[in-house]
């Protein structure tokens, strides 16, 4: 009866995106669908409203419109992220319940995940940050990769902070069950 089917790549992506721990059973899938649908409706309304705003205001004041567009997108993404965090927590999707036998293994897994997140953060920042200097036109992308503005240490410190934060979050979610 035990369900040991291999998870598909999409299931892994869903679990990673919503921070779901443990098996993605039918209840969790239903909750994810509900949260995702709510987010989709909010996105649809937001995009429709913003498009109308750009049509009416953007044609006459393009520079102001672009600034408002960027800020509004950022604020909307933040609101959506906070909603997803609260909704997944309320539905108990993020709690990682492990048996006493698997507790040590789960703790070790979280350490590896934290290290992985830290490395991912360093690489992403290393590749994305030089793009910002492209807009100012001071340096080429390759030049910025060779000599990053804040130095390599800033990426490493950022990666450390991110990795440790992710470790703490995932560690808090582990619950020992008898």
């Amino acid at each position, binding site marked *: *009866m*035990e*369900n*040991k089917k291999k998870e598909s790549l999409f299931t892994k992506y869903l679990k990673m995106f919503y921070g779901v721990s*443990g*098996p993605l*059973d*039918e*209840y*969790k899938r239903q909750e994810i669908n509900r949260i995702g649908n709510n987010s989709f409706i909010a996105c649809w309304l937001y995009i429709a409203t913003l498009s109308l705003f750009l049509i009416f205001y953007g044609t006459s004041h393009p520079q102001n419109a672009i600034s408002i567009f960027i800020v509004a997108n950022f604020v909307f993404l933040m609101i959506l992220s906070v909603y997803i965090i609260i909704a997944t927590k309320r539905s*108990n999707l993020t*709690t990682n*319940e492990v*048996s006493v036998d698997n507790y040590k293994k789960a703790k070790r897994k979280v350490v590896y995940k934290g290290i992985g997140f830290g490395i991912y953060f360093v690489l992403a920042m290393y590749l994305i940050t030089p793009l910002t200097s492209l807009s100012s036109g001071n340096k080429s992308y390759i030049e910025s990769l060779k000599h990053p503005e804040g130095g390599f240490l800033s990426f490493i410190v950022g990666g450390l902070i991110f990795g440790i934060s992710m470790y703490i979050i995932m560690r808090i979610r582990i619950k020992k*069950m*008898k």
Partner: protein
Amino acid sequence: MNRVSEYREKQGLSQFALSQKIGVARQTINLIENNKYNPSLNLCISLAKVLGTDLNGLFWEEEDGK
């Protein structure tokens, strides 16, 4: 009210042990026992098989409300 918790206790299983046997989260078992979530037919059949009963025994309400 369903009788999942009653059959589970008869089998000497905790919510977590039952959830591990069926391959769902413990929260799902808890929600089913408290009538806060309607499981799919497949999950009901899995529950009945593990708990050694049938669907009527688990989910059918008798006339006296049991």
